[in-house]
């Protein structure tokens, strides 16, 4: 029962966060001239060519000179209706464009999280347990190197070696021949995640090909986060092992393994899980950077397209706002899942005793 209340509280927080962030986004956009904001309501055919008459009409019709709260509510209602505006640089509606690109980003995020969180926790616990032994020094060295190399540089080096040099792991999502199969009507798109859809269509080769394309981006993205998470876990593991209850447990004759497994582990995992929940947004930022480098057609295409279209006369406010809001919509579920895992590990959070 209390667990359900915890879940409801988290969901409510997500809702409040969304309201706050949309209000902030519109507030920031109010710093732009009113003529620029008219782009949010640009008719679909009139790409990029902001004529003065048209813009003035939009400003009067949509009341863009109204006070902030009125305008914000009008914009938020439009968002809820699914009208996220029309992007002049993509020549496309923003929300459908975002939704179409979601599976790519989701797949990359999913596999990275599934890889780096278990590995980070495991290696942190291992290194903390084997403190000042070979395994610990090895972990610290690797983690130091992993956090020192910026992911965008690592990605580039890996591309040079494994894609251009050795032809092991290609860029993009699928090989051309498989892409044609996926686009053909026989292939049913169910989840949009190619690795899953391949299995559902009993096309193992497509799943394997999709996985092969994911190896480099997932590795590049996971490495830094794995190292950071491992370090936090190691530190909290050592802190737990130094506490008196561990000494007492061992004094009572419990084996070392049992003490670590039963007592220290769950206490040590909490700060680590908490830190990864807090850095969910930076993970998503990393996802977008990696997508651009490995030419994955994910959500980040929105800004790679509009950056190429630098000569378009009208700055793309609809795409910018849509991207920002959608990015938050990506972070919130991730934070939610990590919070729930924390609550499962720690009864204090679950029962609402701890904020």
């Amino acid at each position: 029962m209390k667990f359900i209340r915890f879940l409801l509280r988290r969901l409510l927080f997500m809702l409040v966060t969304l309201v706050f962030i949309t209000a902030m986004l519109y507030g920031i956009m109010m710093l732009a001239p009113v003529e620029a904001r008219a782009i949010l309501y640009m008719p679909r055919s009139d790409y990029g060519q902001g004529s003065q008459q048209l813009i003035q009409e939009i400003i009067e019709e949509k009341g863009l000179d109204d006070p902030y709260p009125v305008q914000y509510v009008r914009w938020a209602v439009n968002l809820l209706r699914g009208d996220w505006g029309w992007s002049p640089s993509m020549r496309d509606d923003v929300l459908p464009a975002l939704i179409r690109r979601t599976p790519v980003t989701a797949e990359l995020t999913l596999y990275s999280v599934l890889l780096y969180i278990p590995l980070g926790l495991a290696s942190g616990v291992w290194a903390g347990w084997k403190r000042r032994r070979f395994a610990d020094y090895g972990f610290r060295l690797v983690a130091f190197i992993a956090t020192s190399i910026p992911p965008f540089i690592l990605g580039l080096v890996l591309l040079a070696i494994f894609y251009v040099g050795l032809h092991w792991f290609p860029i993009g999502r699928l090989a051309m021949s498989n892409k044609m199969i996926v686009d053909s009507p026989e292939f049913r798109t169910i989840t949009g995640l190619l690795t899953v859809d391949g299995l559902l269509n009993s096309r193992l080769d497509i799943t394997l090909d999709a996985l092969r394309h994911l190896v480099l981006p997932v590795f590049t993205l996971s490495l830094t986060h794995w190292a950071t998470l491992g370090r936090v876990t190691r530190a909290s593991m050592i802190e737990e092992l130094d506490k008196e209850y561990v000494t007492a447990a061992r004094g009572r004759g419990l084996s070392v393994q049992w003490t670590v497994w039963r007592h220290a582990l769950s206490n040590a995992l909490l700060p680590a899980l908490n830190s990864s929940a807090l850095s969910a947004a930076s993970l998503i930022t990393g996802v977008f950077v990696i997508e651009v480098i490995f030419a994955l057609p994910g959500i980040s295409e929105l800004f790679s397209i509009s950056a190429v279209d630098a000569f378009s006369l009208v700055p793309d406010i609809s795409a910018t706002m849509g991207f920002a809001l959608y990015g938050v919509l990506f972070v919130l579920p991730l934070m939610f899942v990590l919070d729930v895992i924390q609550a499962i590990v720690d009864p204090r959070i679950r029962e609402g005793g701890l904020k």
Partner: protein
Amino acid sequence: MKGLVRFAVNWRNWPPFLLVSLFVFVALAAPLLAPPEDPNHPSDARIVEGYTDPAPAPPDENVVLGTVAYYSLGALGDANMLHFDVFYSLVWGTRSILRFGLITAFGAATIGVLMGAVSSYVGGALDALLMRVTDAFLAFPVIAGVWLFQTLMQTAGMRLTDYTNFSWVTVPETWFQRWVSAWDIDPVMLALIAFSWMAYARIINVNISVLKQTEYVAAARSLGAGNLRIIFRHLVPNAIAPIIVLLARDVGGMVVQQAAFAFIGVSGTVNSTAIPEWSRLLMLGRNWVIGQWGNPFVHWWVYIPVTLALILFGVGWNMLGDRLNVLLNPREVVK
């Protein structure tokens, strides 16, 4: 003083200290290391004459670390190849990169400390509200903020067609845009400050919530100290140690993040004056990293020096943070 001695006697403190001092030294000695053409108005980049090839020119006696080429389109549609001196940009870029890192990290820390200190000291509903705001900010990816401010600044000087007499109408700038362009502020810097102060606020909040229960705060209040005096004279100095550690790490972290954004193209075009010189090198060189037959060393001077500089910069400040942590929070450090 005692702290300085303690810092100096441990050999582990020397590598980060030397790394950071190296960058400060290069920044200060830039006019000696890479003499500018006009000493009174040194520019951040030097364009080398005599190279017309579209490919970057390899190092020779003229340019120590080669050049990167920039294909610029003139006002009359005339195209010319501009070759930037890599070594010069690297040396003079140290100044802008240090400025970028320090301003961004200090900006974020200032906002965070103010938020955290005020909320935890006042407590109650305001504390709950400000901390929920902090949590909401935590869900916002920085890259979206960078693009947001970028677009905001793009709308400055936006032009609209007037079809009645077929002319341009330039949209007037808002106060914010005037302010940003008057101070020549990088929108990326603005976004990084606006969306990465949350860690500071959370740390300060937790620390002060504990500290304000202590007896010396009650003593200070009974002596008649005001709220502001208690916050900034008693509470913040005692809660500041982890902030300094985070600050040192952030100086490097912000710079590396900024370079990543520049590299993937969200932080504006090559022409932008606000972009630090190192990031411009990365932007100009990114298409030359993978050379013929996948050999990444054909045009090595285009990206290896600046990449190494970035890595060393990040590592230096990060290690400095770690060592300050040992010095300032000896209890929390687990060896």
